[in-house]
């Protein structure tokens, strides 16, 4: 990590629990991302993914620690960090155009009507909603609503896009199309993106880095998985890539078993220097044969290297 565009430094989030004790969702969490990177967070329900994203968005404050974006500690929300909400969060009394225009006028307050409209239209076209500008959210399908949410987020030309399970409520087909669009837009505009997902394939397709979180309470960022797949990967033939299964199995293994036992298994976990893993070729796994220890059965897996 040469330049840290986003740097989450030792944040903790605690809630006052019952009987006066505090529940700690997570503490001493460090995470950083470079400019133009696409990061995906995977972890079980309730581990604190939304909490991290809300803190990053400025909608929630950490109990301890700080978030630094582009060299500055963040204070509250910002037009530089756009959020795509899981529930799309469109304003139902506004049309598609009205919803996007609301964001545009919030960023450029002195633009005149025509300019706002033209700008909003560009982004409505970009997400393929041309012709639906004057529909209200209630007249749109789930996928179309989510597209409006994406158009609204993009229209303010943010530096970072934050997405909390943006496609989880959609059917597989629509989800695929939107994944393609988000990926295309992020690559074209060089967006830095931070996304929460429960879908391993979605993470493999979209992410440059996959952050694996252990189960809460007291969740930690266990590992950072670097995506070994080439940048020009396609969604359809993703599974044909030689590294695909190694990567997928690694993530699924983590979710199935290691995320539960991580805290007891790994005693020397340094939250500041989370191991970076780059799962490798599956052929090597077969070549190694049975009988090896678990670690050795994954020779293609580069040794957990630490990053700074």
């Amino acid at each position: 990590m040469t330049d840290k565009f986003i740097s989450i430094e030792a944040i903790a989030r605690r809630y006052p629990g019952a009987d006066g004790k505090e529940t700690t969702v997570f503490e001493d969490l460090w995470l950083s991302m470079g400019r133009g990177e696409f990061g995906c967070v995977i972890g079980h329900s309730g581990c604190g993914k939304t909490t991290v994203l809300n803190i990053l968005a400025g909608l929630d404050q950490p109990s301890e620690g700080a978030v630094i974006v582009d060299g500055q500690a963040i204070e509250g929300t910002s037009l530089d960090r756009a959020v795509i909400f899981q529930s799309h969060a469109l304003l139902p009394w506004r049309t598609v155009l009205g919803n996007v225009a609301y964001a545009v006028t919030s960023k450029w307050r002195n633009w005149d009507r025509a300019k706002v409209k033209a700008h909003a239209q560009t982004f409505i076209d970009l997400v393929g909603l041309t012709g639906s500008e004057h529909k209200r959210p209630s007249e749109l399908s789930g996928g179309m609503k989510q597209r409006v949410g994406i158009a609204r987020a993009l229209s303010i030309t943010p530096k970072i896009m934050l997405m909390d399970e943006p496609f989880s409520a959609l059917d597989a087909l629509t989800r695929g199309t939107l994944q393609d669009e988000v990926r295309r837009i992020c690559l074209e505009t060089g967006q830095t993106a931070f996304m929460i997902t429960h879908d391993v394939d979605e993470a493999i397709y979209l992410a440059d880095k996959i952050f694996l979180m252990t189960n809460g309470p007291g969740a930690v960022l266990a590992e950072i998985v670097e995506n070994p797949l080439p940048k020009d990967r396609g969604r359809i033939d993703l599974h044909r890539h030689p590294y695909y299964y190694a990567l997928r199995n690694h993530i699924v293994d983590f979710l199935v078993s290691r995320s539960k036992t991580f805290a007891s298994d790994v005693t020397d976990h340094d939250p500041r220097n989370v191991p970076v893993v780059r799962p490798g070729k599956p052929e090597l796994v077969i070549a190694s044969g049975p009988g090896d220890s678990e670690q050795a059965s994954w020779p293609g897996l580069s040794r957990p290297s630490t990053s700074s």
Partner: protein
Amino acid sequence: MTSSLRFRAAVVSIVLFAAFLGIWHLATRPTAAAHNMSPEYAKLMGLTATQGKSAMPGPLDVGAKLWEHLRQPFYDNGPNDKGLGIQLGYSIARVALGYFLAVIVAIPLGFLIGMSPLISKALDPFIQVLKPISPLAWMPLALYTIKDSSISAIFVIFICSVWPMLLNTAFGVAAVRKEWINVARTLEVGTVRRAFTVILPAAAPTILTGMRISIGIAWLVIVAAEMLVGGTGIGYFVWNEWNNLSITNVIIAILLIGIVGMLLDQILARFTRMVTFPE
């Protein structure tokens, strides 16, 4: 399908109304005249006794009188004899004024209560105590302090219409979906603009529902208030005609009160529909 249902419902309504008029007519029909009655007593009692005419007017009497009123709604022959249009006009004007003042106070205050948990908690005991007080209980206090019967009536309208609006506004504002607020926050929308572009449209249906309840209560209360303060207005008209023993006029006034109340409700219902958004 639905249009045929509506048509059938209309037919049933008309049949019911006709049946009601028929029964009314039969019940108030003149009965056989009393025979053995002293002429002086008969003279004193008028037609009611001599020709067996019912004291309760029939639908034809009411219809004829109503026609008379409708032909001349705005005549003014001094304080005790004004056209029904004028009387209704006074009542509507009082309701409008008191209601308007209540809107001006209740909606901003409701916003404040809805947006600030502190103010909400601080004002709660006052609202809890003041809300259940019958608006007419304020009348003597109002008359004493304001010393003007007409303004006192307006004050009573204000006080009775303020509560539903205040509580509904506060509730509507407090219940605005968190995600809409979060949208405004991520777009760095300031408090004032947020109040007008997110909270107001989101809470508008709830606010309008409160306003609709208020106009209904205000129209109920104005009749009673005008009976108390006297002078002008449809409430005063009812009371005055009762004193004149003109049951026909009382029935006509009752009918008009109902119709105006319905119209006021319909106007607010239309506004409510205008601000309601489908989700």
